[in-house]
């Protein structure tokens, strides 16, 4: 059983850590938080497009993940992104998949 099952209430993911002393976060002030969200969508889209998925912001609190045919799910944070993507696709999203790596390398060139 994975650690994500028990997550309720959001902002618990490590990439989005709550601002407190000693912890590195891009979740500090409002401007930085929105900038990071935009950046996050841009980065994720660079990978998701190889699966035919698109990601967009929803009210600056969640993300909307959609397939080309319009199937849509709300995603709370990065911790839920890949599990939701796999559910929409019905197949795994594996960063170690050699085909994906080749396509990313060609794209990043």
């Amino acid at each position, binding site marked *: *059983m*994975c*650690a*994500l*099952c*028990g*997550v*309720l*209430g959001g902002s*618990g*993911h*490590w*990439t989005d*850590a*709550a601002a*407190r*002393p*000693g*912890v*590195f*976060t*891009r979740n500090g002030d409002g401007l*930085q938080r929105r*900038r*990071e969200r*935009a*950046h*996050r969508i*841009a*980065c*994720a889209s*660079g*990978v998701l497009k190889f699966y035919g998925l698109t990601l967009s912001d929803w009210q600056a609190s969640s993300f909307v993940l959609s397939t080309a045919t319009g199937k849509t799910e709300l995603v709370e944070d*990065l*911790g839920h*992104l*890949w*599990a939701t993507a*796999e559910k929409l696709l019905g197949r*795994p*999203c*594996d*960063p*170690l998949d*050699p085909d994906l*790596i080749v396509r*990313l*390398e060609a*794209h*990043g*060139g």
Partner: protein
Amino acid sequence: MVAEPVFTPVNLITGFLGSGKTTLLQRLLGDPALADTAVLINEFGEVGLDHYLLERIDDTMVLLQSGCLCCTIRGELSAAIRDLHSKRERGTVPRFRRLVVESTGLADPFPILSTVQADPVLRHHFRLGNVITTVDAVNGMAQLARQPECTKQVAVADRLVLTKTDLTDGPTTEALTARLRRLNPSAPLWRSEAPLDAAALLAHDLFATAGRSDAARRWFAAEMALRERAGTHDRNRHDETIHAFALTFDGSLDWTLFGLWLTMLLNRHGERVLRVKGILNVAGTDAPVAIHGVQHLVHPPVHMAAWPDADHRSHLVFIVDGIERVLIERSLQAFLGLPSRSLAAA
């Protein structure tokens, strides 16, 4: 402005059946520095004995009655810690400043760790501290060969304690030590017959020491040795699927791309990524960011005070089960090479 919450560190003491967890706990709790420590133990296996030994140590002890501290009773562990927290706030138990959980010998340590980090109440009041794993010098080699839980307990440890070394000979201990080093190169290793430094075992964790100038060096000392050998052939014996390796990346890296990659890796392969630990040169920050994860669980990233030396490259150490180093390296490089449109670093 809400006052900063105080996070009580939670230490996990794990180790295979009969490896001396309770004896270690007893010795540690005898240290005056740990007088304000609450203890949660589990009766499975060593019924009565654990209870008998620990009963008089701390009256804030709560016995978990239902066997194994794994997924199925994660809720019970959560309830037990919440109960302790509640009693502390109401003043019905002393204000303990540390909590130690002793797991059963058969437990996979991961669900216990995830309980502290994922529970919506606990995560605002507690944080994970060091995981201490005891290994029996007499039976350790055989247990590592036969019991996957044992290997996992060693791989996730922040501190290793080799017990019963007085009952075995030097070569056996040396062979076991070498095996432990391959499984987990980063955890400092104590021998139980030596004097134990309770603070070093329990209290000196990444979060507590991050502000100190020597913290990064101390925390990453073993990895530094490993990274020196990063280019050489240091794959372990072919029959050992669990292996450790270090990766080094030049220049600063984009935090978001890295987060996206690690999240994707852990979503698909988390059970086989036993440990990931790294010092990252993150674009837009001067000091290094330390990252530390066990399987699906990644601790909140920590700002270190300073770089340990003149080498400001990013270093990552993985302990994985059956994943090829070359695949991980190539995949991460491919992600980091994506156009990042560095908005976050602006």
